[in-house]
């Protein structure tokens, strides 16, 4: 009986004081580390319990669309492209950056990555070129090396339906026609058409690509930095190239849902995620590369992250809005070109 009363009183205390909840929509990766680096310290600091809803970008965006009139989620993590789609569907509200005490400490490219202050970049990753140094004896230095005869039939490129695909195509258009913002991407499509026979496959996931490297099927491909650690684990003789035309830069972003019930908590969460402490902890655990310029990590950690002055300086970012506006057309063109 006494136990029952103790429990009842405890429940009442919780009810009256109310442990605040914050609903966060995010990916289902590294959950243990997220609990250690974010959930637990966040609860201790602000008394707010983070409740996560998990899924890939498109599934979570679909959920936001169906919940539009009565949103459940307060803060959402997206790849920049999906954040832009969410803006297009009227699902987000602009972020008042004056409420973020750590805003001044993040890279400029993370401050307003999709425009209109609809998103804050909280992590960055690059896409460079990775190749087998035992099979390709010369140094790879340029994106144009994909068109060399000595790698023909041994290369893979990301499919246009991946997050990186359309950005790569814009970069190709820049390299071959001097302009990334061609709505038709004429030069890029023409060059990829030339290359079509020499591409083993247009990969859709980094795990698929790692597998192709392991089997010796592919010797050279554009690779995202967040999967570089797994490439190194294969034990193959591999080199990471920063091409002379620059690497592609991508951010993952945080957004506040329009009509979020816990707006105050949402701002605290975003500020917390770009804070020095959290950015450092996440970097040291190799979860995410930091955008907070104050974060310093040792070399053995840095080589697996998108980190360091040289590395960051070489990043090229393109306007996501341009991709969203033209993506349907590009995908159809790609299907016509590749799948016929």
């Amino acid at each position, binding site marked *: 009986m006494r136990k029952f009363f103790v429990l009842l009183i405890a429940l009442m205390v919780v009810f009256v004081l109310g442990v605040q909840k914050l609903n966060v929509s995010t990916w289902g990766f590294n959950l243990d580390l997220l609990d250690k680096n974010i959930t637990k310290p966040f609860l201790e600091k602000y008394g707010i319990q983070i409740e996560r809803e998990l899924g*890939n970008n*498109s*599934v979570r*965006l*679909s959920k936001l669309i169906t919940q539009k009139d009565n949103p459940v989620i307060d803060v959402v993590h997206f790849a920049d492209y999906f954040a832009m*789609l969410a803006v297009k569907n009227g699902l987000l509200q602009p972020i008042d950056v004056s409420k973020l005490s750590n805003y001044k400490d993040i890279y400029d490219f993370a401050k307003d990555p999709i425009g209109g202050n609809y998103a804050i970049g909280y992590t960055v990753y690059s896409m460079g070129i990775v190749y087998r140094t035992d099979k390709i004896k010369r140094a790879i230095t340029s994106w144009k090396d994909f068109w060399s005869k000595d790698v023909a039939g041994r290369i893979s490129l990301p*499919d246009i*339906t991946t997050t990186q695909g359309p950005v790569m195509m814009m970069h190709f258009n820049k390299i071959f026609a001097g302009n990334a913002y061609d709505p038709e991407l004429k030069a890029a499509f023409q060059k990829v058409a030339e290359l079509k026979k020499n591409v*083993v*496959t*247009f*990969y*859709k996931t980094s795990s*698929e690509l790692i*597998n*192709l490297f392991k*089997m*010796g*099927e592919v010797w050279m491909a554009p690779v995202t930095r967040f999967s570089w650690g797994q490439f190194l684990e294969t034990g193959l003789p591999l080199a990471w190239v920063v091409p002379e035309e620059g690497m592609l830069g991508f951010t993952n972003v945080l957004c506040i849902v329009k009509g979020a019930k816990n707006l105050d908590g949402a701002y605290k969460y975003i500020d917390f995620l770009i804070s020095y402490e959290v950015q450092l902890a996440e970097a040291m655990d190799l979860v995410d590369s930091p955008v907070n310029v104050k974060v310093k990590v040792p070399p053995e950690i840095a080589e697996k992250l998108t980190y360091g002055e040289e590395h960051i300086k070489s990043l090229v970012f393109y306007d996501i809005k341009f991709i969203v506006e033209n*993506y*349907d057309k590009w*995908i*159809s063109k*790609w*299907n*016509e070109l*590749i*799948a*016929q």
Partner: protein
Amino acid sequence: MIFFLLPLLAMFAESVYQPTKGWVVHRYLEFFRQRLSRTVYVRSLLMGFSVTFVALLIGYPAAMAVVSVKNDSLRSLLMTLLVFPLMTNPVARTFSWHAVLGREGLINNLLLTLKFTDSPVRLLYTRGAVFIGLLQLFLPLMVISLTSALENLPKDVPLAARSLGASAFNLFTRIYLPLTSEGIVTGCTLVFTGCITAYVTPAVLGGSRVLMLSTLLYQKASITLDWTMATVIAVIMFLSTVAVNTLSRAISTIGVKK
């Protein structure tokens, strides 16, 4: 029945009329007007037909062999082995095909050692690879359907036919085929529907080059969020499989009446 029909009706309704967009029937026309969707549609159907046909061709003798085994424990062992591919993870199973079909894989090594070819042949990311992957995946369904049909066949009927002087050919076409037609139709239905709707196999073994209805649907639903077109494709897939299955059932009943 309600739980089965309601989602289907909802899907169909959604592909025709949407509260926010009004009538969207024109999206069906749009689908068939595009050269690419037509190619993908025909490719998917042909893939379904060819896999089903070959599965039947291989599956029938295999099922007869299984049924002819008298030893019970040996037979159940065979059945377990048959079902085994269905129990492995589809992603793992498909990736193991990479090890077989890759340029440094089993088949190419064999071809190279036997001097059938000077340089490795591209087998992965072709229609052939998708075909083989689907065949391995769905052949067990065919064999299982046929095995149960053959087991239900009265043992004395073939014997009687034999004793009345039926040739092996006649025995097969006039006794076995009509009496197991139910199993054949079931097997074909399962294999064909499976082929049309399979996603992992065409995605991993075919890649972007071998776009199929299921991979196109995924593209529309998850990448461009064009749900109307995704629903249209889903309805087209559903109606096509229903049509093909009704047709095969009709053909089999004609065969029985004779």
